[in-house]
């Protein structure tokens, strides 16, 4: 039987059931993780069913959302996670100072490898597909179940194949490819399905951009996104010191739900208008509209990696933010933070009038470090612009890549680096 990568990985982990699309299977998971918002419910679940961890090496706890604790209630949530980690001697738990945003931290720690089956109590778990894993977001109860049994139920998804061809234009990043794709298929365009990103433009795409693309699969409703692992994957694994995983490929004659071809050369930097990620428009169209902004945010599990900060620095170098705009920059992990500091990026950011925070999700979900007031407008490198996502339900969030966000901070309105 011919199978897609998604099916092959699931098949490798099956305990009960069969690999036909639509079937519900019980499968072994290689890694189950949760954060400070979702873990307390998982821990509670585990306690209710008897309290034993199946394998503490196969779990991770990442307090990233409201840390350093934003208020008393979130401090209590973090305390539950910390105490649980300490009592159970969990090796993959990181305290403030070591912790970063989960979907950036886990690959960086070498915990995401090709061929793994990964479940995380966070919707952006699909980010891990960039490394050729089957990584999917689930709920807290699911993770509690996986903590206890090492297994989880899955519905075998159909796969949509996306073939990207052509050369990327100036300022066009992985973020733009994925915003364009979501704009094309809509926020439920890949509902319950796996998205396989292939084609010449993906084969050469740097890992950071692949991670950004897979990160936003959920914004199209996708169960996961997968990039076939290749030399770029190998290089990344070497750098982070991960021992190689299993490199799966879809069979030539595997059955796809749909095949969508995308010409990358016609894609401009994309801006997703409020209040859905599917409202993507090319920058040339947006520039004309003169959309004034109050805040620019560069960070999150979508675009807070080193290459994102480098491109922002390239644009901000020798420039200053518009005096009305608050420019917030959050490196996603301590390693990225330190590297950015070493490379002198912090000086460029500070000279530009930015504020730099410790790694945290922070404003991405309207938590802290840059919550929006009513009527305010933000350009953000994050992944969601739902009503109320970054604070007030009457605020407006536009999504973009970091180059556009940096340029917009200088311009005081949404615009392109070419306008500077």
């Amino acid at each position, binding site marked *: 039987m011919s199978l897609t990568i998604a099916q092959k990985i699931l098949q490798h982990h099956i305990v009960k059931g069969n690999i036909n699309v639509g079937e519900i299977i019980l499968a072994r998971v290689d890694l189950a993780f949760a954060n400070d918002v979702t873990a307390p419910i998982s821990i509670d679940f585990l306690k209710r069913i008897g309290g034993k961890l199946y394998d503490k090496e196969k779990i991770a706890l990442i307090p990233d959302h*409201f840390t350093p604790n934003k208020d008393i*209630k979130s401090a209590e949530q973090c305390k539950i996670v910390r105490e649980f980690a300490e009592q159970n001697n969990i090796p993959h738990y990181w305290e403030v100072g070591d912790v970063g945003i989960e979907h950036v931290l886990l690959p960086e720690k070498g915990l995401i490898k090709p061929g793994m089956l990964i479940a995380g109590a966070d919707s952006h778990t699909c980010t891990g597909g960039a490394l050729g894993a089957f990584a999917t977001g*689930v709920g807290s109860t699911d993770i509690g*179940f996986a903590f206890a049994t090492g297994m989880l139920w899955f519905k075998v998804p159909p796969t949509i194949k996306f073939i990207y061809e052509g050369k990327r234009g100036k300022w066009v990043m992985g973020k733009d490819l994925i915003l364009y794709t979501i704009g094309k298929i809509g926020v*439920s365009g890949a509902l*319950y399905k796996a998205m396989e990103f292939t084609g010449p433009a993906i084969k050469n795409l740097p890992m950071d951009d692949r991670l950004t693309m897979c990160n936003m699969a959920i914004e199209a409703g996708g169960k996961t996104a997968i990039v076939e692992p290749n030399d770029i994957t190998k290089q990344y694994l070497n750098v982070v010191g991960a021992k190689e995983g299993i490199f799966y490929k879809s069979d030539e004659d595997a059955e796809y739900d749909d095949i969508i071809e995308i010409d990358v050369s016609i894609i401009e930097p994309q801006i997703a208008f409020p209040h859905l990620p599917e409202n993507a428009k090319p920058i040339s169209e947006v520039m004309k509209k003169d959309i004034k902004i109050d805040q620019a945010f560069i960070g999150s599990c979508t675009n807070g990696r080193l290459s994102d900060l480098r491109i922002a620095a390239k644009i901000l170098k020798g420039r200053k933010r518009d005096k009305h705009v608050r420019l917030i920059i959050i490196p996603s992990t301590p390693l990225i933070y330190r590297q950015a500091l070493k490379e002198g990026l912090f000086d460029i950011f500070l000279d530009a009038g930015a504020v730099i925070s410790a790694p945290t999700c922070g404003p991405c979900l*309207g938590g802290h470090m840059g919550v929006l007031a009513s009527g305010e407008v933000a350009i953000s490198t994050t992944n969601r612009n739902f009503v109320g996502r970054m604070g007030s339900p009457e605020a407006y969030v536009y999504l973009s890549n970091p180059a556009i966000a940096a340029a917009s901070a200088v311009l005081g309105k949404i615009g392109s680096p070419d306008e500077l």
Partner: protein
Amino acid sequence: MKGKVWKFKNNVDTDVIIPARYLNTSDPGELAKHCMEDINLNFAKKVKKGDIIVAEENFGCGSSREHAPISIKASGIACIVAKSFARIFYRNSFNIGLPLFECKETDKIKEGDIIEVNISTGEIKNISTGETFQALPIPPFMQELVNLGGLESYAKKLSKEI
């Protein structure tokens, strides 16, 4: 299950079901107080035990927060009928024993209608209009989860089997 309908549109996301500003607790009663607050201020105040949510496409899209179905279940809602559901919301709901029904004809059901949902056949009767619709039957595994009351009992059962 028989109850009064609360009607919602397309793409109701988890940020409006339960805004992130309330995610610093996971107490069901607390969460229920703010359920749907950013989309319908009356919902949390007026919802009654046994009421039913009816919506259009992609209900529950967005984050994986289980707080969303927890707040809905704790507010008294018996089940949700929608044209389609976001997948993490779908699994979260069944995992906590909140049944969901996929039915393409929800535009024929209005706010305030009284409907009756047959949990085993998926038949939906609109008592207010006399119309009947058919939802997709719940897959056997999900049916088992609902019958057991959620993944907690399933885990206990599984530990005896394996």
